[in-house]
């Protein structure tokens, strides 16, 4: 009776060993399955945490800030829908009318103190609210295509951009190796090299890049991309001119323009033709694709991010109203998952990015 003391302790008559063994196996199996689901047993699994870790190693101090497109400025305004969108989507903000917008302009780097000349990538994010409380959030870039088509390639690109903690610089060979190994990225890099610089957020067109699906009243689903097309004429300047305008160049330009009046963009849905790629945002669709004029974004005022209304919104591309759904583009889930981790981190680090006045009450 080797089990006798244990049996007495547990208040059981007779041997308790076999029962405890079974219980132990059940608990151990459940725990192992849970740990596997959590990714604790597979450290090589690409997780949103690892992507966000890598994004934070590209220089500057992103603590308290978004881990990508970290330097930005808030704006408010409204979206004036034409009503034409209602033919292809039941989204409530496509019904003719005005819908409030909170948005953000940013540059595509991980350093909140970067120069505005650090990258040609500029972005616009919007949160459009319908009267029934439904929201449409979208983050768009000014490049015609995205740089990669998969989360794995995005991670590889981010690693190639990370600063070596010893030298404080990215590994010189890493980016070359990335470019050589990712021919799909060539279209983006060729745009990044040749696109004319301008001194403004206002004269850029911002593209959804990822495809989505619009669903109409009959339940018909169409693949679309969308573009916020600048109404403001583009004014090219040299990179040196932009650099000379200092670190606040784009935010100052925005305030200056808004002091003279609202800024406008035309939001167009671009309809895919059969066979157009929806799962690869490095591939542009032909310019001849038909468009539906959804409406006009009117930007009325801009606010510094530290106290601005966009600060505490996550412009998660999968916060969608009815009538808009994700496509099969694998980047969408990856963006949503990674934005959530970035948001969780910066809200936990809020003390490191202090507000300079009392927070505005939202909602």
């Amino acid at each position, binding site marked *: 009776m080797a089990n006798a003391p244990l049996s007495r302790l547990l208040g059981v008559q007779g041997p308790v060993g076999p029962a405890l063994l079974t219980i132990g196996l059940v608990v151990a199996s459940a725990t192992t399955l849970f740990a596997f689901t959590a990714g604790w047993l597979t450290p090589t699994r690409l997780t949103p945490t690892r992507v966000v870790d890598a994004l934070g190693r590209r220089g500057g101090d992103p603590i308290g800030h978004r881990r990508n497109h970290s330097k930005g400025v808030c704006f408010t305004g409204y979206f004036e829908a034409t009503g034409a969108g209602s033919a292809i989507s039941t989204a409530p903000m496509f019904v003719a009318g005005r819908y409030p917008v909170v948005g953000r302009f940013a540059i595509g780097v991980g350093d909140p103190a970067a120069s505005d000349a650090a990258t040609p990538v500029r972005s616009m994010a919007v949160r459009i609210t319908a009267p029934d409380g439904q*929201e449409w959030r979208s983050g768009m870039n000014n490049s015609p295509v995205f740089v990669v088509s998969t989360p794995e390639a995005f991670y590889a690109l981010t690693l190639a951009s990370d600063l070596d903690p010893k030298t404080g610089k990215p590994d010189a060979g890493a980016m070359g190796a990335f470019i050589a190994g990712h021919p799909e990225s060539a279209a983006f890099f060729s745009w990044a090299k040749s696109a004319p610089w301008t001194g403004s957020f206002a004269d850029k067109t911002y593209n959804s890049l990822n495809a989505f699906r619009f669903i109409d009243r009959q339940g018909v689903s169409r693949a679309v991309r969308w573009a916020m097309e600048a109404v403001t004429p583009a004014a090219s300047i040299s990179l040196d001119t932009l650099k000379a305008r200092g670190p606040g160049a784009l935010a100052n330009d925005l305030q200056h323009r808004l002091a003279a009046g609202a800024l406008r963009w035309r939001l167009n849905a671009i309809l895919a033709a059969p066979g157009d790629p929806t799962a690869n945002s490095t591939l542009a669709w032909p310019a001849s694709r038909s468009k539906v004029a959804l409406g006009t974004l009117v930007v009325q005022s801009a606010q510094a991010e530290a106290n601005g209304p966009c600060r505490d919104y996550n412009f998660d591309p999968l916060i969608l109203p009815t009538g808009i759904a994700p496509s099969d583009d694998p980047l969408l889930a990856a963006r949503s998952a990674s934005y959530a981790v970035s948001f969780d981190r910066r809200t936990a680090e809020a003390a490191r990015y202090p507000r300079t006045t009392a927070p505005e009450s939202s909602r």
Partner: protein
Amino acid sequence: MSSTGKRFSAAQRIVHWFMAVMIVAMLFIGIGMVSTLKPQYWTLVSIHKPLGAAIFLLVILRLGLRLWKGAPPLPLDLPRWQAAAARASHLMLYGLMFAMPLVGWSMLSAGGYPVVLWGPMRLPPIAPHNDQLHAVLRSAHTWLALLLFATILMHVAAALFHALARKDDVFESMT
């Protein structure tokens, strides 16, 4: 009101097993969705919110049933420390079953997220939109989930202990 027989009422047993499946699924969905960026991320997130709301409704019903119907008494010969552990773990389970959906709902509210259930159906915010509040609730949601998983493991271990080692009526009271 106290329970009459050795078993929980039929309604309590049905709700218990429905919730058992839902809660275990919920814990796996939750820990799985935050650790993947594959397309199933979106599917899992879309299930997580309405499932959490359903669990919240069921736990209200369940507490009502428990207060109305009571529970069968524990065996008289159960060592006192085991009886105390049983009461404490049941309190903990009820507490966490209420806390998890409420913390999740308020965490999304504090994060400025719409709490989308199905189509245009959404829940109103129950907490102010505030970054620091979001951070506290977000972290609490994870830690409480791990605590709930651990408590469920202990609950399962105890139930099997009654069935396999003590061979008393406790396991049968819920089957």
